[in-house]
């Protein structure tokens, strides 16, 4: 697969993933542009790995987690997003989900990245650990801390599907 083909096939997906990390359109674009820049230069190497997309996704996470302050990147104006929330009970649930969104936006980047990888990309902890350069225990710790901070419980459907623990159980 050429670089052009890869980008054409995955650009939208990568942008969506970058959005779940940054919660900001311009920053998501910047992160992905920088990642694709490096990927383009090294595409011969990247395309030879078993899963080029996993590799590029890892680059996106690294780029986002890095807190090297790059003045060259800053955008003229941030483009914070607003959610179009569709819930059954628009009174209380809408407000709480909006509050949850803003609390997620305030999470430390590693914690939000782990949440995005688990709950958006649906990656297993072992894959997240490999991607984040840490142990699976650390991944679970990040998830546990994030969910506790957000006061979120593991959904019953997910518990049945994955056997994953609640924050309290995971931190014990």
């Amino acid at each position, binding site marked *: 697969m050429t*670089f*052009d083909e890869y*980008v*054409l096939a995955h650009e*939208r997906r990568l*942008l*969506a993933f970058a*959005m*779940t990390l940054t*919660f900001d*359109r311009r920053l*998501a*674009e910047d992160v*992905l542009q*920088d990642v*694709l*820049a*490096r990927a*383009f*230069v*090294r595409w011969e190497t990247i395309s030879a790995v078993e899963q080029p997309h996993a590799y590029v996704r*890892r*680059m996106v996470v*690294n*780029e986002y987690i*890095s*807190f*090297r*302050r790059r*003045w*060259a*990147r*800053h*955008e*003229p*104006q*941030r483009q914070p*997003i607003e959610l*179009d929330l569709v819930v059954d009970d628009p009174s209380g649930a809408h407000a709480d*989900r909006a509050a*949850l*969104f803003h609390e*997620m*936006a*305030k*999470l*430390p*980047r590693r914690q939000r990245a782990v*949440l995005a990888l688990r*709950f*958006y990309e649906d990656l297993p902890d072992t894959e997240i650990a490999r991607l984040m*350069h840490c142990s699976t225990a650390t991944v679970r710790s990040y998830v546990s*801390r994030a969910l506790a901070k*957000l*006061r*979120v*419980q*593991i*959904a019953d*459907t997910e518990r049945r599907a994955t056997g994953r623990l609640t924050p309290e159980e995971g931190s014990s």
Partner: protein
Amino acid sequence: MRTTDDIRAIFADVAEKAPQSLDVPSHVDLAPPPRRRHWRAPALAAASVAVVAVAALAVPAALNRHHDTPAGTGRTSASPSPVRPTAPGIRYTGTALDRAIVSAQPHALVPRIGFRVDVQPGFQHIKVDRITSRYQSATIVGDHDWAEGNATGDQTGPDGAIYVFYRGAYDPPSAAKRGQPVSVEGKAGYYAKLPWMNADAAPNAVTDTLIWQYAPDAWAMVQMETPNDLATERAFAAAVRNADQPLPTIFRLTYLPAGLSVSGLTSTLPGDGVSTMTPGNAISHVIYTGTSLLLDDSTAATPTGGDSLYSALELQVMINSTVRPGDACPDGEADVVHGQRICLHHTAGGTDAVTAPMNGLSVTITVGGNHRGTYTDQQLEQIITGLKVAARPLDGRTWFDASTAVQPAR
């Protein structure tokens, strides 16, 4: 009750808000990546290469053309010997930090490195790379991340940062004083959740932060990526030492319009970046090599929290890409000043970017919202044509001394 289903729903909604495709910044050059064998152009190449990546989709033909970067001009660097700063009230004596970079004149940029940090187990790569009118800061990179960056050529994130504020430049917020009282080498401090100094962090995000008062009305801060790790933050705090070293910059400024001054400076020498050159991977070496200046006509600082310098409203000068003269102005208005090709990009509010190829590099001035329309195109052009770039940008020995490089005579 909130559940993980809510998180999934929010992520799905956020993902839906993603742009359909990447925009190509109009003010960045379209250039193919340099071949290592011919590599001459360093410094913050990511921006241009990013556009290359996108351009590869839009204009593949352009990527098939081979261009050489222009050769260096043979300029020699200035100030081979460091010049001591002239800012008043600076103390460089003593071994403790309490006499390190305390300034009697807050909010004045002191373009010299005023502290260093002893290496810690697992953290051999700690560099002071940012100087502002409020503080100096060092980036901490763990050995694991450093090795990872070298092995893969990929960017890996620094693991923390140390900020040493000038006297009077930082007033601990009430949240700090509600934190856990601690002592650092006999100096009183607090361990509390405070806003990230790093502006890349999410708005209003806080992290476990150690601050201590290293001298009267003078504070320092450690913030690590790993949460709840007071022991590590305390170890870094105790490892901060007095220093007095020149700060190298890749270019020298010779002109600024009246009223405009340098309010911030970040500089990373070749080899000091997170990623370094590996065989077949020339580009990563230079992604974080280079210099950026922030220019401002108001040095008022944010008293607490946040990194006010990372503001899109400011005006900044940076070396950010490789460039070939023929591609320098794909979408802007081309101009030639004293034989120097310049590209101006306009918005409704005024000129927002000026770029010029220089010594194999692309120098860019970005004009933030606060300054747009304030300075004329001629003044912006004079800033950029007045820049002197190091003769051999990948050789830090040819870089300039910030003490003279960022204080142009008017």
